[in-house]
C-alpha cells in the first residue's frame, strides 16, 4: 500500500495572522506561536488541517538570550513531512506554557520529560511529575547552567587530556565537594523519598461496595524494576480490582544517564558511538537517524554506494531487532525460550555480518556524516545475499509455521491489549504499534529518506490492534525487509563510500534540523540545534519506545494482571532508549 506524500507547505502565519509568525532566525524553519494561543492553534491544526499526530515535543534552553523554547513537531498520518512550531517563554522561573495533553494525549510523557529536564511548567497537565529523575532531585539537568557531578568543561575535547595530560580517574576527581547540589535544607538523615507518594497519589484509588453491601478496597501492585519480564529496569505500578487492572502507570528513569546532556558536551562526530547505546538492539538505525539529521544541517550528499550500504544495514538491523522482539514476546506469552533461541540463531548470523562490516556486533558506530566508515569487506555481500535470498525467507516461514497457529499464542494474543487506530494516533504511537492498529504509516513511504523511494516493498498493516496483530506485523515487516535487502544487494553500485575527506572535526552551520527514520521500534527522530560551534547546542532524541509507552497504560486497563507482561512485550521497548 502506498501513501502519497502531499507536498503542501503550510504557511501558519497566513492561517493565524494574529498568533503565528515565521521563525526567521538563520537556519531555522517553522513558526513561533504566541504562548496563550497555543492550544487554539493546535486544535485547529488537528481538526481542520489534518495534523493528527503529535510526534515530538522538546525544550531548548537559549541561555544567553534568556529564552526557553518548546518545539513541537506534528504530522499527518496520511503522509507528508513534519510541521514544526514552537512557543517561547522568558527564562525565569516559573516558566509556564499551556499543556497540549487535552489536544494530543500523546504529549503526556514528553511534557513530563520537559518539566523534569528543563523546568517548564505545563499548565493544565493532568499529572505533572518528574519522569526520568527522581522526585526530590534538585534542579533541571538539561538547563545550560546545570552541571553534573563530574563536570569538567562545557565541551569536549577536555583540555586536561591534551597535550600535557595527566591520568585522572573519575572516582578521584570529585570528592563530593563543589559540583554536587542538593535541595536547600537537605538533610540525608531526615530525607524520606516523597516520589513514591507522588506516584501513588497519581493513581486514583477508590473504595466500592458490592451488591452484598461489602466494602472492598483495591490494591496497588508494583512490577519491577527488578523483574525479568519487564525487559530491563522498568517498573509498572498498577491499581488492581481483583485481577483486573483499573489503572496503570509506568515508572521509568532507572537507566537514565542524560544522554542528551552528554550529547551536548560531545562534538558532532563523538556523538555517533553514543547513539549506538540508545536502542542497543538496533544501533545502525540510530546511527542512520543521527547521520541524516546532521547531514541535513551540513547540507551534504551521500554517495550512491554508501546509501545502498546504509539501507542494507538498516534493514538487517530491523530483522535482527524483530527477531529479538518476537523472541522476547514469545517468552512473555509462555513459550519459554525455544522460539527465542530459534530466532536468536538468525540474529546471530546477522550480527556476524555486522561484526565483519562495522567491527562490532552491537555497538556498530558505522555511519559517518556523508557516508559510512568503511566499505563492505570482500565476501560480505555474498554472505548478505545468501541470507536474504536463501536462509531468512525460509526461516521467517518456519517461525510463522511454528507459532502463528499455536493455540496459546492465539488465545493470549487475539483481542488482548487492543488499541484502536484513533487511540494509537492520539497517544502518538508509531511503528509496528501504530501499523497493527490499521494505520499504514511508515516513514519510509510517507516521508521518504535516503533511497527508500527506489525500492518495491509493502507496508505491513493489520487491523485489530491486539497483541497477535503486533506479532504478525513484525513478521510481515521482516519479510518486507528481506525484499528490500534482496533488491538493494542486487543493484548496489561500485564507487565512493564517503563524500569528501574523512574529518574528525566537521563544520556544521548554525540552524536547527529534525531528522527521522523508521527505526524497528517506530519513529526515531533527532532534533539538533547547532550554533556553528563544534558541539551541538541542543541534541534531542525522539525515542520511539519511550513515546509508545504513553499508550501502555490505556491499553492495559480492563485486562488481567498477567497481560501486563504480554502487552509490554508486544510494544517492544528497550530501556536504553526509554530512559536515555
Amino acid at each position: 500500500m502506498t501513501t502519497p506524500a502531499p507536498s503542501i507547505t503550510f504557511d501558519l502565519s497566513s492561517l493565524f495572522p494574529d498568533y503565528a509568525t515565521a521563525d526567521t532566525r538563520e537556519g531555522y524553519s517553522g513558526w513561533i506561536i504566541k504562548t496563550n494561543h497555543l492550544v487554539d492553534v493546535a486544535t485547529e491544526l488537528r481538526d481542520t488541517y489534518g495534523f493528527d499526530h503529535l510526534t515530538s515535543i522538546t525544550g531548548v534552553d537559549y541561555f544567553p538570550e534568556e529564552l526557553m523554547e518548546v518545539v513541537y513537531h506534528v504530522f499527518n498520518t496520511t503522509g507528508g513531512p513534519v510541521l514544526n512550531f514552537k512557543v517561547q517563554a522568558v527564562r525565569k522561573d516559573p516558566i509556564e506554557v499551556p499543556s497540549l495533553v487535552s489536544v494530543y494525549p500523546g504529549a503526556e510523557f514528553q511534557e513530563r520529560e520537559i518539566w523534569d529536564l528543563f523546568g517548564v511548567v505545563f499548565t493544565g497537565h493532568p499529572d505533572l511529575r518528574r519522569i526520568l529523575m527522581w522526585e526530590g532531585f534538585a534542579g533541571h539537568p538539561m538547563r545550560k547552567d546545570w552541571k553534573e557531578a563530574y563536570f569538567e568543561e562545557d565541551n569536549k575535547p577536555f583540555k586536561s587530556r591534551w597535550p600535557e595530560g595527566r591520568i585522572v580517574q573519575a572516582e578521584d576527581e570529585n570528592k563530593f565537594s563543589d559540583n554536587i547540589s542538593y535541595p536547600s535544607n537537605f538533610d540525608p538523615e531526615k530525607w524520606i523519598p516523597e516520589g513514591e507518594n507522588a506516584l501513588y497519589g497519581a493513581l486514583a484509588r477508590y473504595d466500592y461496595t458490592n451488591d452484598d453491601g461489602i466494602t472492598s478496597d483495591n490494591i496497588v501492585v508494583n512490577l519491577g524494576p527488578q523483574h525479568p519480564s519487564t525487559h530491563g529496569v522498568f517498573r509498572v505500578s498498577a491499581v488492581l480490582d481483583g485481577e483486573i487492572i483499573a489503572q496503570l502507570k509506568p515508572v521509568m528513569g532507572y537507566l537514565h544517564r542524560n544522554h542528551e546532556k552528554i550529547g551536548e558536551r560531545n562534538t558532532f562526530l563523538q556523538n555517533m558511538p553514543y547513539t549506538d547505546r540508545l536502542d542497543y538492539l538496533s544501533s545502525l538505525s540510530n546511527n542512520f537517524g543521527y547521520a541524516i539529521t546532521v547531514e541535513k544541517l551540513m547540507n551534504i550528499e551521500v554517495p550512491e554506494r554508501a546509501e545502498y550500504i546504509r539501507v542494507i544495514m538498516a534493514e538487517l538491523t530491523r530483522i535482527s531487532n524483530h527477531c529479538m522482539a518476537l523472541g522476547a514476546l514469545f517468552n512473555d506469552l509462555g513459550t519459554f525460550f525455544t522460539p527465542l533461541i530459534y530466532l536468536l540463531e538468525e540474529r546471530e548470523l546477522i550480527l556476524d555480518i555486522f561484526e565483519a562490516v562495522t567491527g562490532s556486533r552491537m555497538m556498530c558506530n558505522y555511519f559517518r556524516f556523508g557516508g559510512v566508515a568503511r566499505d563492505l569487506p570482500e565476501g560480505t555481500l555474498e554472505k548478505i545475499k545468501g541470507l536474504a535470498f536463501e536462509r531468512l525467507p525460509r526461516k521467517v516461514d518456519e517461525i510463522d509455521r511454528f507459532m502463528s497457529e499455536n493455540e496459546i499464542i492465539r488465545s493470549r494474543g487475539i483481542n488482548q491489549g487492543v488499541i484502536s487506530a484513533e487511540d494509537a494516533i492520539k497517544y502518538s504511537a508509531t511503528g509496528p504499534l501504530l501499523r497493527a492498529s490499521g494505520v499504514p504509516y511508515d516513514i519510509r513511504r510517507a516521508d521518504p529518506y535516503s533511497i527508500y523511494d527506489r525500492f518495491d516493498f509493502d507496508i505491513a498493516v493489520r487491523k485489530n490492534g491486539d497483541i497477535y496483530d503486533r506479532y504478525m506485523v513484525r513478521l510481515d515487516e521482516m519479510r518486507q525487509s528481506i525484499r528490500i535487502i534482496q533488491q538493494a544487494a542486487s543493484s548496489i553500485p561500485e564507487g565512493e563510500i564517503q563524500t569528501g575527506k574523512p574529518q574528525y572535526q566537521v563544520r556544521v552551520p548554525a540552524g536547527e534540523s529534525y531528522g527521522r527514520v523508521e527505526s524497528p521500534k517506530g519513529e526515531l527522530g533527532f532534533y539538533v540545534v547547532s550554533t556553528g560551534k563544534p558541539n551541538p547546542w541542543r541534541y534531542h532524541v525522539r525515542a520511539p519506545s519511550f513515546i509508545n509507552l504513553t499508550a501502555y497504560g490505556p491499553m492495559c486497563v480492563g485486562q488481567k494482571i498477567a497481560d501486563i507482561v504480554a502487552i509490554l512485550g508486544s510494544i517492544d521497548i528497550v530501556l536504553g532508549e526509554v530512559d536515555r
Partner: protein
Amino acid sequence: MYGKGILKGLGVTIKRFIDTYLDDIRWLGKRYYKPEGIAHRSSKDSRGIFTIQYPEEKLPSPEEFRFIPFLVYDEGEKGEEIIRCTSCGICAKVCPPQCIWITRTTNPETGRPVPDPAEFYIDADICMNCGLCAEYCPFDAIKMDHDYELASYSRNVLNLQDLKKPASYYEMIRPINSTAEDKARQAKVEAREAAAAKRNE
C-alpha cells in the same frame, strides 16, 4: 481441531532436533572443535544446534573486529622499537569518552617538544571501543586490537608499555588493512623523495 497449531509447531521442533543429528553424522568428527566445522555452523547452511562451545571453541574474529586500541611500533634493524606515534593528540581529541592522555617528550637540552610520546595512557575501563582513534590517526600509529579477553582483578589503565605492540602483530590480525596502509605510506614517502630530488636538481 484444538491443539493442531501446537502439534504443527512441535513438528518444527522435532525437525530441528533430527537435523542436529543428521548434521552431526554428515560432518562426523568435523563439526565441533574444527575451524571448518565452526565456519559451517555460522554459515547460511547451518542446521541444527549452532552453539559455539566457548572457551573450547572460539569464533574467528573478522579483520575489522575492534577491541581496545594499541600502539604500533616498527622494529628497527637492531631490534629497537620505533614507535609510530608522534603525540599529535588527534586520538585524544576525537575520543568520545575522553579516555586517552598523552604527554609529549621534550628535549632535555633545548626544552623543545620532540614528536614522541613520553607517556600514553588509555583508561580501558572507560574506552567504549568505538575505533574513532584508529580511524582518524594520520600516522597509522594507533590501531584496534583483537584481544577481547580482558578480565582482571583491578582497573585496566594501560600505559605506554602495555599498549605497545609490534607492526608484525598488526599485520597478523589485519593483513588486508595493514598492506593497504603500508602501500599508501610508501607512496607518500616516494612522492616526498621525488619532490625533494626535484628541488635539489
